């Protein structure tokens, strides 16, 4: 089991291999479709982003509202592929180091990840109640008008993930599925 604390740099990213189990601690940021659209529009217009993403991780999630006494509601990963159109700009221009989500990524995303030494982590889809327990603090830091799609700053402790695609482009889905195909 590998432990990663955010922010993390290129050499730490390169030490992670597809299939590695990791526990992530520190600050991570949430963003999904609508927040990605706004951030990449800001990048294209030469405007600053609402948060500094250099060496940081974006978690693709739109959490449920917190019940009284909860830090956050259920918070599992959403399908990453919907962010593919925006991701190369986030990696090459915003300095993003990692992403947490579920599902396949495009070749363009894999190429950009290789170029900048970034890592794609997988969290278990549909385990949002369990995953929320690893989130210690949550606050909206940008785009509150987007509701569940707002950007949250999350403090996580031992958030469990698997390295899905590493900095060399190795893909754990492709390798795993090949083994069981008949």
């Amino acid at each position: 089991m590998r432990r990663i604390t955010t922010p993390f740099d290129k050499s730490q990213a390169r030490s992670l291999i597809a299939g590695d189990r990791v526990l992530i601690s520190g600050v991570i940021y949430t963003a999904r479709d609508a927040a990605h659209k706004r951030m990449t529009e800001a990048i294209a217009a030469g405007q600053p982003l609402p948060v500094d993403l250099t060496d940081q991780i974006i978690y693709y999630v739109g959490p449920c509202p917190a019940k009284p006494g909860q830090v956050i509601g259920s918070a599992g990963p959403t399908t990453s592929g919907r962010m593919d159109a925006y991701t190369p700009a986030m990696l090459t221009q915003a300095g993003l180091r990692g992403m947490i989500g579920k599902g396949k990524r495009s070749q363009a995303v894999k190429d950009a990840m290789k170029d900048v030494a970034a890592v794609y982590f997988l969290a278990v889809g549909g385990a949002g109640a369990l995953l929320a327990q690893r989130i210690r603090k949550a606050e909206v830091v940008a785009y509150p008008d987007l509701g569940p799609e707002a950007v949250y700053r999350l403090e996580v402790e031992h958030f469990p993930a698997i390295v899905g695609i590493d900095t060399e482009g190795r893909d754990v889905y492709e390798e795993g599925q090949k083994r069981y195909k008949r």
Partner: protein
Amino acid sequence: MREIPVSKVTDAVEQLCIQAANRLPSDVLERLRWAKEAEESEVGREIIGLLIENAELARSAEVPICQDTGVAIVFLEVGQDVHFTGGSLQEAIDEGVRRGYSRGYLRKSVVRDPFDRKNTGDNTPAIVHTCIVPGDRLKIVVCPKGTGSENMSQLRMMVPADGKRGVVDFVVETVSRAGSNPCPPIIVGVGVGGMMETAALLAKKALLRPVGQHHPDPEVEKLESEILEAVNNTGIGPQGLGGRITALAVHVETHPTHIGALPVAVNIQCHAARHAEIQL
């Protein structure tokens, strides 16, 4: 004639929205327990174990199984002797959704327009499918559906010459293309026949059947088994990390169709196959 005040519908829908989001139906949970034993991949077994643990936590802590608490799809079976009183039925259902998603702390995931994409803020409107049946009862089924699996669904207008072989191949193609995206192990709903919209609706209704319960027609049952085997031979496995159990079940529904038609719809459902129902 039996009168049902629409306020009763509002109350029922509110409760059903919360119940569906937090409590995985017992047939789904049982099937997951079976899959945990049947899966050959170690990481696959571990993942299914986490999904069971997650579902148990959601039930006991009364929190959503998954953060994508979906669009509220509401199936109504309305007895033809029922008369709704006290207001609009659609508005009553929407009010139930509004209260359920607010009081249940469920995520609001509906945008008012597919292009301007502004969140309606209360998860309304519900999508309502109504079927008129004999009698004076009202059955309400609330089925929250998220996009992880819904986006991986497909419909194809095939031709009669494609036959069963064509249907099997189309389902396998759809599941393969979906891969890890729809949170496998999945349940596959297949609708064959009718016209375009019939096939789509049949595929969705097929997902409401208790998981793994076969179609009563032995020919359709055979087709379900054949598709399940083919789908599980893709090797996609739990969460797409490789394994034997890609699908927990395949449910096929059929309908009479045109001499020149073979519409086929494949509606994919994630492992969090949520629905709740009541009869009034």
